[in-house]
């Protein structure tokens, strides 16, 4: 049996990116995909020429390397689309991101007042702990806004109370700005602020949906000498002496197939992966993997005989009376997503556990259910629904509960004992990465195979990576040693910028300035007094003597000059000290204000990140 240089498990964005990067460097891969289609959760499903996306993928990345890759793969097949989205809550639609006048009108004056009070109260008495998502949001928006605009939807998506969602999930999705970044954004035209704002208002989208990207990538990868095998679900990963030797699975006919390789890259969910290891890992690792939870996702697609249903790309459904979490209008993402402009295809998104009864319902039952829910909130007339289909996506979202970090750490430590095996992508790292970060992990995995030392686990933990930050070639032989490499990061300051900020915001030493100003003022008064005393006259220095109003005991005499020296010096010290302190405080306050403003902009689209 032939041994492949690299075997990649999963043809989603991470796996295909790995193969693509390797292919460009002359290394061929074998890609094993369990489904019938490439793209993973970023695939575009085609149902009677109605195309639909699994969740809605806006193409925007703060990682330049990813933007370059997208355009390298898909050329100019991107559309720039306006973003329109609303929240449906309490029988009303609210613009999202929230707009003050629209929100006030929707909530009514009494509720708006209560929201204001709630916000003020939270700001005065914030929760000292931010261990969970509920506390995190309340500390930023107030309890009432949290209940209206975040709680229901978030709990629909994740299926657990917000108080059980780890706060670092929010922190990962809404990264804090450092003071320096905030200042630099302000000084250099709000680099990130503009990016975030533009992302809120418009986005890029492939003409025929995100799957177009990955279908094209598959073609390119195959052109570079790699092979994609679909319909092969990997069931066993055979390893020995710290190396994976082969993987095996079944094809649709049930026949067992085995693939040997030199390097292996997996995007399988960690829970499944550990379960597939042969021999089995230590019990502690198995237990940790089994403790990882995933949220499943189901889209009911309705084909509606109406040209326009609503103008939004998507609507968040916050109302608890329906189970639907979000509704997509695919032709508003791209007009090419429907074959007939007189029809509209809607995607009703349900977030479920695979043990929920809805997960097992037939397609017809789900289509009926979805149609009724749509009618219930007044968006369509059930008679307009002509057709429909259902797409189920298992393990679409890795759950960030309170135990996940410990469990992932245990699994990771075990996986890092292998010298020729890497896990990448959203499920391969159990990290709620977007497509772009998954791609970065793919690029890094490819780099590691070619001798670099990149830590794929560090992607999207604190900062976005730049291409320049990739690790240097390893000198560790064929054993890869994942190390946390020193990287340049998105929004990080360049050396020059760092120097500028250090220089501009360098602190004045209040004591030193106090001593300097005090010495000068004391000496000036001392010498000014002496000059007049030496000059003499009938009335010595009547003008300067007026300083006696402020300097106790001062007069234009020899002894008065010493009083002026001491008291002027003390006064000058106070002036210098206070001036330096005020200047330092002003600079810091300015930086804090800029950071606050930057973070408000970032939080504007919090729901998009749920």
């Amino acid at each position, binding site marked *: 049996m032939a041994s492949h240089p690299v075997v990649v498990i999963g043809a989603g964005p991470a796996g295909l990116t790995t193969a693509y990067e390797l292919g460009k460097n002359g290394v061929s891969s074998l890609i094993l995909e369990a489904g019938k289609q490439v793209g993973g959760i970023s695939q575009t499903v085609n149902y009677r020429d109605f195309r639909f996306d699994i969740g809605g993928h806006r193409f925007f990345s703060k990682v330049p390397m990813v933007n370059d890759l997208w355009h390298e793969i898909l050329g100019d097949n991107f559309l720039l689309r306006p973003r329109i989205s609303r929240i449906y809550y309490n029988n009303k639609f609210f613009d999202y991101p929230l707009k003050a006048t629209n929100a006030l009108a929707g909530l009514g004056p009494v509720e708006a007042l209560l929201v204001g009070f709630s916000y003020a109260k939270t700001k005065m008495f914030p929760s000292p702990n931010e261990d969970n998502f509920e506390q995190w949001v309340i500390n930023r928006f107030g309890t009432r806004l949290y209940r209206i605009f975040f709680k229901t939807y978030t709990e629909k998506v994740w299926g657990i109370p917000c108080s059980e969602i780890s706060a670092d999930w929010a922190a990962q999705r809404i990264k804090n700005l450092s003071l320096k970044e905030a200042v630099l954004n302000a000084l250099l035209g709000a680099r990130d602020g503009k990016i975030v704002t533009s992302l809120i208002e418009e986005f890029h989208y492939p003409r025929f949906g995100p799957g177009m990207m990955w279908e094209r990538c598959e073609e390119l990868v195959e052109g570079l000498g790699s092979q994609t095998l679909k319909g092969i679900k990997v069931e066993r990963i055979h390893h020995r002496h710290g190396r994976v030797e082969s993987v095996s699975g079944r094809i649709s006919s049930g026949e067992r197939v085995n693939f040997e390789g030199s390097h292996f890259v997996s995007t399988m969910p960690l829970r499944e992966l550990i379960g597939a290891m042969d021999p089995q890992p230590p019990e502690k690792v198995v237990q940790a993997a089994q403790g990882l939870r995933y949220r499943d996702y189901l889209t009911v697609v309705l084909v509606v005989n109406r040209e326009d249903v609503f103008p939004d790309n998507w609507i968040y459904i916050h109302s608890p009376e329906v189970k639907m979490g979000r509704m997509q209008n695919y032709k508003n993402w791209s007009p090419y997503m429907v074959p007939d402009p007189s029809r509209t295809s809607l995607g009703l998104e349900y977030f479920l556990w695979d043990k929920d009864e809805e997960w097992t319902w037939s397609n017809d039952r789900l289509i009926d259910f979805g149609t009724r829910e749509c009618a219930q909130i007044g968006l369509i007339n059930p008679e307009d629904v002509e057709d429909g289909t259902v797409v189920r996506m298992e393990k679409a979202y890795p759950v960030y509960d309170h135990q996940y970090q410990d469990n992932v750490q245990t699994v990771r430590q075990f996986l890092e004992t292998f010298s020729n095996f890497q896990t990448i992508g959203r499920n391969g790292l159990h990290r709620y990465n977007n497509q772009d970060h998954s791609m970065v992990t793919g690029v890094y995995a490819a780099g590691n195979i070619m001798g670099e030392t990149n830590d794929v686990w560090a992607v999207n933990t604190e900062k976005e990576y730049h291409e320049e930050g990739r690790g240097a070639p390893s000198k560790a032989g064929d054993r890869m040693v994942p190390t946390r490499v020193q990287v340049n990061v998105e929004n990080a300051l360049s050396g020059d910028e760092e120097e500028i900020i250090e220089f501009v915001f360098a602190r004045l030493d209040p004591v*030193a300035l106090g001593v300097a100003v005090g010495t000068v003022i004391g000496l000036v008064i001392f010498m000014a007094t002496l000059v007049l005393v030496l000059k003499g006259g009938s009335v010595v220095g009547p003008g300067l003597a007026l300083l006696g109003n402020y300097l106790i005991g001062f007069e234009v005499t020899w002894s008065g000059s010493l009083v002026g020296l001491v008291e002027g010096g003390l006064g000058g010290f106070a002036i210098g000290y206070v001036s330096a302190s005020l200047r330092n405080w002003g600079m810091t306050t300015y930086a804090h204000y800029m950071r606050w403003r930057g973070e408000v902009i970032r939080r504007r689209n919090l729901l998009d990140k749920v």
Partner: protein
Amino acid sequence: METGQKTKEELSRTVANIQAGVLAFVGGVIGGLGLFIMTAWLLLEGGPHVGSHLQLLSNYFIGYSVTWPGSVIGLLYGALTGGVLGWTIGFIYNKVVGIRGG
């Protein structure tokens, strides 16, 4: 206290040095132009006793008076004095920072 220090250091770990030459220049410009403008202002206002208080500076600046030629002399004196004071403040500040910084 510790948090405040951390915030300061997050922004910049550097304690500024003052460029004594630059501060001398700034002091000189402010001092020179300041005295020139003050003198000129009183001259333009006019009156029976023009600038009797400002005139007291002649105790220190020999040749200075509240007249147009005096305003030019004041410009030079002001610039010189401002420059010396600015430089001295910068010099002493830097010395103290150096001593305190070890």
